[in-house]
């Protein structure tokens, strides 16, 4: 019993990161109608950003978030100006196809770049307090993962508040709902696209930091994280960031349950099966508007 409870707990902890990884993708997909399949590669780069800051500058990994987040935001601006800004000029169907193409090309290039810079080895950020565990009623909670979950929630809550109350947050939501109406209402739609993409990339970078602390990174984790994020986006539906976070937790727990029931190698399959079922039965997602 306690073994199962422990697995569920670990599932919940990684689920928070699934939610954070998905939030950025959901924002970009919902607002720009662009499917960035290189999202997982952006997460991977964020993770290596932290890895560098920790090993080269001796920073605390959690503190590195304060640098990685703005760097990723800036990276997002650059990517939008260089690539995705051209994609959003096309109509919606062409946008999806072109963004898939550019995403694959980008994923290929970023993966090759990461192999060059950091080799193909798996890496993790090591901290003196990394092994610390909180014991609660027979369960042991790894402290760094708990902190990661809390940070993931804090970031998503901040995004939720930004979208709700910030002037440009409202503009982003209006653009997501109906960009033509938003344009008629005097909203600078292109600026809203730019901001949404930059914020999405920033969140990917932050997710990468947290992945590198509690788990491990390698240049080839990109597709895996893109898929996880896609699953959560479809589970949650577009338009609700808190729903996205909850769906991330749900996916983490569902994977833990299936790993316990069918054995470790099948934890991925369960998530994908749930994903296909939700996609077919309820295409708007569990929290979709």
């Amino acid at each position, binding site marked *: 019993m306690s073994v199962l409870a422990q697995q569920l707990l670990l599932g919940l902890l990684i689920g928070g990161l699934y939610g954070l990884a998905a939030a950025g993708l959901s924002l970009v*997909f919902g607002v720009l*109608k662009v*499917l960035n399949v290189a999202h997982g590669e952006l997460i991977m780069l964020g993770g290596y950003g932290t890895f560098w800051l920790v090993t080269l500058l001796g920073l605390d990994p959690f503190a590195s978030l304060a640098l990685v987040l703005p760097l990723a935001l800036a990276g997002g601006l650059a990517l939008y100006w260089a*690539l995705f800004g*051209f994609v959003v000029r*096309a109509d*919606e*169907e*062409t946008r*999806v*196809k*072109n963004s*898939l*193409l*550019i995403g*694959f*090309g*980008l*994923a*290929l*290039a*970023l*993966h*090759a*770049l990461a192999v*060059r810079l950091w080799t193909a080895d798996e890496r993790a950020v090591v901290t003196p307090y990394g092994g610390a565990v909180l014991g609660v009623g027979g369960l042991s909670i790894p402290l760094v993962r708990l902190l990661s979950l809390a940070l993931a929630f804090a970031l998503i809550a901040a995004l939720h508040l930004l979208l709700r109350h910030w002037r440009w947050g409202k503009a982003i939501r209006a653009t997501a709902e109906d960009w033509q109406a938003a344009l008629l209402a005097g909203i600078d739609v292109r600026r809203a696209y730019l901001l949404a993409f930059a914020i999405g990339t920033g969140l990917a970078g932050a997710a990468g930091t947290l992945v590198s602390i509690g788990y491990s990174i390698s240049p080839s984790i990109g*597709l895996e994280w893109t*898929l996880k994020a*896609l*699953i959560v986006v*479809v589970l949650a539906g577009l338009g609700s960031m808190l729903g996205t976070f909850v769906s991330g937790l749900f996916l983490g727990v569902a994977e833990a349950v299936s790993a316990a029931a069918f054995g470790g*190698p*099948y934890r*991925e*399959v369960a998530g*994908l*099966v749930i*994903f*296909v079922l939700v*996609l*077919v039965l309820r*295409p708007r997602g569990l929290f979709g508007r």
Partner: protein
Amino acid sequence: MRRLGARRERGWAAAILGALALLAFLPLAVQRDDVLNFVFVTLLSITLAQSWNVVAGYAGQVNLGHAAFFGLGALTARTLWIGGTPLAPALAAGALVATAFALLIGVAAFRLRGAYFAIGTLALGEILRTTVSNVLPEISTLPTAAIATYRLSQRYYLALALAALSVVAVALLSASRLGLGMQALREDEEAAEAAGVGALRLKLTALALSTALAGLAGGLFAYYHISYYPSHAFSPSWTFDALLMTFIGGVGTLHGPVLGAVLYVFLKEYLALRWVDFHLLIFGALFVVIVLLLPGGLVQAAARARRLLAR
């Protein structure tokens, strides 16, 4: 306009088949295995790209789970062939299994539109890949007797035949009522349905044809390689390769995927030889540039150049 396009398409079909016919003499003229292997990979790529082109280019359904059908064809054909079944029935069975699976999931998958269809099929492909790598984790190697009688030229001619088959199939399709219906669907699904095109039936037909060709390509892959991990044939890179080649050449045309496959394989090999360490980086970046500058691929670039010259 339509008739003119049809005549040009027939010309391309004749040119491509003529080139393939010439390639039939290559093993007689050149005894080098590296050359034959290179052409083999190009031919396999043409078949794979053309198979993806049927469902994505003509019917407009961006299927990101294409590797699943390639993998199913490879797995079925390899298992039967090593088990003693003659090659032709084994290949046919591979195509059949791929198509049967496609029809099974197609009804559900085609409830999804646009991006959702794309990511839904991507997930389906990953489900199969993970399951196969869990169930069959061990490398599949040909029995020693088969290795002793291994002839590269046999693989080469099979690849040539399948590439020709895929080109003929797409040429026939694009000239037929069926193909026109698919293109109508691609341009505007509602309008096509209003004009009496049965959307689901046509999409399923496109998927069946596409996956049958992909299954055959998978069988060819299984026949060619002496040893590989069964899950490798399910790797999403097969989907991405097919997609990249088709888009580089020109999606939804007969000759686009062929030109795209030739350029893709050549470019990748050339960059790999020239810049060993950086080739994937350059290749990825180059690809992004092609998509940005030439969204319709080589075919559109050629059409644009023609119009400029005609002015």
